[in-house]
C-alpha cells in the first residue's frame, strides 16, 4: 500500500493503464501544455497536474493537446472509441459540458442502443467539478445529476485515492462511456492505495460509517462533509450510516435501501441546486421503495435554486456544509 493523494492516484493510474493497453489515448486542452511555445511540450502539464509525464512517455499520437474546442474533443473521443481505441478526454471544468453536451448525450451515450447493441464506445471523460475555490457561476458546478439522468452513460465520483485508482481502472477496462468526476477540492486528499492491479466495481457503494441511527447518502465532496457531520453527531451519541455512492449510474440501490430499512431516516447531501437533483432522485427512490421503513421525511441537503456565487461569504452560504448535514440529521431524528 502506497500513500498518495487523489491527483497522484489518477496520474499514476493513467500512466500504468497506458503502459498496459496501447489503445488508450488521452486528449484535452493543455494536458501536455507548452505546445507551440518556447518552452515546448510539457513545459507545463495540465492545470490540474493529473497528466504529467504522459507525453514524454507515449508521444504525440497518444497524448494529444487540443485547441479550445470541447465539442470536437468529446466528439473525437466518441469517434476514436467507436474506432476501437480507449480515449480519455479531459474537460478542464465540468461546466464545459455546456459546450459539448451533444457529443456526450446524443452521441456517445446513444450509439450502442441506436445501433442495435452492435457497437461499443469505451470513452472515459474526466470532468473536473465542484465549488470551493471561488471560481464562480461558470467554473464551479457539479453536473453529475444531468449526466446521471442520461441512459447510456456511467457516472463515477471517487472520493479517496484508492477509489480514484480502482474506479479509473474499472472505467478503462470497461466497454461503456464513463463520466469520471474529479472534485477540484479533493485532489489533495491523501490515503492508502493498493499496489498493483486494483479495480473497484461500479454500482457498489462504500459504507464510510456505520451508525444505525440515520442514513446519510452522499457523493463527492459531500462525503467528506458527511464525515465531519458524523464526528459532531457521534460526540452526541448519534451514529449515522454514511454512504459514499462512488457511482451514481449505476446506483447501488440496495446499499441505500438496506440502510434506510434499518434506520428509517434518510438524508441526502448533494452539491447541486435542488430541482431534479441527485438528492431528489435518491429521496424519491427511498420514498418509493422503502416507504414503510421511513420514519421521517427525507431530508435533502442541497444548494439553493441559484447559480454559484463568487464571493467567499456567498459561496460558503451556497455550498451544503457539514453543519447543514448535521442539522438535517437532527431534524430527521427529531421528527415524530
Amino acid at each position: 500500500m502506497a500513500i498518495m493523494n487523489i491527483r497522484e492516484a489518477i496520474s499514476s493510474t493513467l500512466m500504468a493503464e497506458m503502459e498496459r493497453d496501447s489503445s488508450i489515448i488521452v486528449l484535452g486542452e493543455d494536458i501536455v501544455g507548452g505546445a507551440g511555445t518556447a518552452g515546448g511540450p510539457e513545459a507545463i502539464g495540465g492545470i490540474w497536474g493529473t497528466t504529467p509525464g504522459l507525453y514524454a512517455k507515449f508521444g504525440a499520437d497518444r497524448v494529444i493537446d487540443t485547441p479550445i474546442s470541447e465539442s470536437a474533443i468529446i466528439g473525437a473521443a466518441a469517434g476514436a472509441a467507436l474506432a476501437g481505441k480507449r480515449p480519455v478526454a479531459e474537460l478542464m471544468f465540468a461546466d464545459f459540458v455546456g459546450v459539448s453536451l451533444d457529443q456526450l448525450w446524443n452521441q456517445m451515450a446513444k450509439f450502442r442502443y441506436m445501433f442495435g447493441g452492435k457497437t461499443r464506445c469505451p470513452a472515459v471523460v474526466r470532468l473536473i467539478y465542484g465549488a470551493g475555490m471561488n471560481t464562480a457561476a461558470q467554473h464551479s458546478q457539479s453536473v453529475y445529476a444531468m449526466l446521471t439522468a442520461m441512459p447510456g452513460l456511467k457516472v463515477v465520483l471517487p472520493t479517496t485515492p484508492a477509489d480514484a485508482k480502482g474506479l479509473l481502472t474499472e472505467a478503462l477496462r470497461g466497454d461503456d462511456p464513463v463520466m469520471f468526476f474529479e472534485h477540484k477540492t479533493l485532489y489533495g486528499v491523501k490515503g492508502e492505495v493498493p499496489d498493483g492491479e486494483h479495480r473497484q466495481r461500479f454500482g457498489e457503494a462504500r459504507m464510510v460509517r456505520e451508525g444505525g441511527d440515520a442514513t446519510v447518502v452522499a457523493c463527492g465532496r459531500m462525503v467528506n462533509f458527511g464525515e465531519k457531520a458524523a464526528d459532531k453527531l457521534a460526540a452526541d451519541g448519534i451514529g449515522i450510516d454514511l454512504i459514499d455512492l462512488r457511482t451514481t449510474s449505476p446506483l447501488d440501490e440496495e446499499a441505500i435501501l438496506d440502510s434506510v430499512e434499518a434506520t428509517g431516516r434518510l438524508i441526502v447531501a448533494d452539491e447541486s441546486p435542488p430541482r431534479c437533483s441527485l438528492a431528489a432522485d435518491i429521496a424519491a427512490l427511498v420514498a418509493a421503495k422503502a416507504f414503510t421503513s421511513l420514519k421521517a421525511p427525507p431530508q435533502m441537503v442541497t444548494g439553493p435554486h441559484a447559480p454559484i456565487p463568487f464571493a467567499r461569504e456567498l459561496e460558503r452560504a451556497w455550498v451544503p456544509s457539514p453543519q447543514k448535514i448535521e442539522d438535517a440529521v437532527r431534524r430527521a431524528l427529531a421528527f415524530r
Partner: protein
Amino acid sequence: MQLPRDELIGAYRRMATIRAFEERLHEEIKTGEIVGFTHLYCGQEAAAVGVCDHLTDEDMIVSTHRGHGHCIAKGCDVKAMMKEIYGRRDGLCKGRGGSMHIADLSVGMLGANGIVGAGAPQAVGAAIAARLDGKGRVGLAFSGDGACNQGTTFEAMNLAVVVKAPAVFVFENNHYSEHTGDSYAVGTSNDIASRAEAFGMRAWRADGCDYFDTYEAMRELLDYVRAGNGPAAIELDTERFYGHFEGDPQRYRGPGEVDRLRETRDCLKAFRARVGEAKLLDPADLDRVDAEVAQLIEEAVTEARAAPPPDPADVAQDVYVDY
C-alpha cells in the same frame, strides 16, 4: 478513366442500388408503413460512390441524416437496411435506430446521425485512432452545405489540422439545407472549399453528379492524406431530387427545377453516356445490373414487410455493454 470493367460495373451497381432503394422508399413511404423521418439521397449517388470506392472496410466514415447512400456505398447490407427502415427486429440496428441511425462497424460505417454536424469531430477521432495503427487508414466525414455552418464542423477541421490527423471532410453541397439555399446560409457565397482552406488544409472541388470527376479528385485527395500530409477536404457540387424529407412540399424549388435536374444532372445517365461513348461498357451490361438491382430491392421490401417487429420487452436492452 482507367478503371477496369469490373470496377465500372461495380460502381454503376452501387449507384443504381442507391437510386432504386430510394425511389422505392419514396413509393413505400406513401403507404404509411414506414414511420419517422426519411431523407432520401437520390441525385447524390455519384458522390457517395465516387468517394467510398476508394475506401476499404478498414477506413471509417461517419454519415448524416441523409445516410442511405453512404451506407450502401460503404457496403452495408441492403436488405438489413431496408428492415431497419421498416423498424424490424432483425433490421441492421434491430429497429432501434431507423433511417437516421444506421451503422455497421464491420464495414467501417460508424453511423448516420440525426444531429447535423455531429459527425465531423467523430471522423477526426476515427482518424486519430486509425493513425495509431499505422496502416494508412482514414476517418472520413460526409457533411452537407447546411452542416458546414455548425460549430462542430469548424472545430473538427481546425482540430484535424492541428493534430495532422488523416481526416477527410467531404462536403456534399446539394444547395439546400432543408428549405434554405446555400447562397443564403453559407456566408462565403456558397464556397465551402475555401473555408476548409482557411483552416489550413488542402481542398479539392469536384462535380458530385459525375462519378468520374469525384472519383479522380478523391484519388488525389486520398493519396495525399494517406501519405501522412494531414487532413483534406473536398466540396462536391451535387443535387437532391426529392424533398428535404419525405413529405416536404418543396415550394422553395423553382418551376420545373427537379425535372431539369433529373434531365441534366443525373449521375446515372451521365455514367451511362460516358462509358457508352468511351465504349467501355455495353448498355446491355448496365441494363442487366439494373434488373438485378430491381430484383434485390423488390426482395428487400418484400422481406422487410414480412419481417417480425421488435419485441417491446426488449425496449431497454443494449443500453450498456454491462450495467
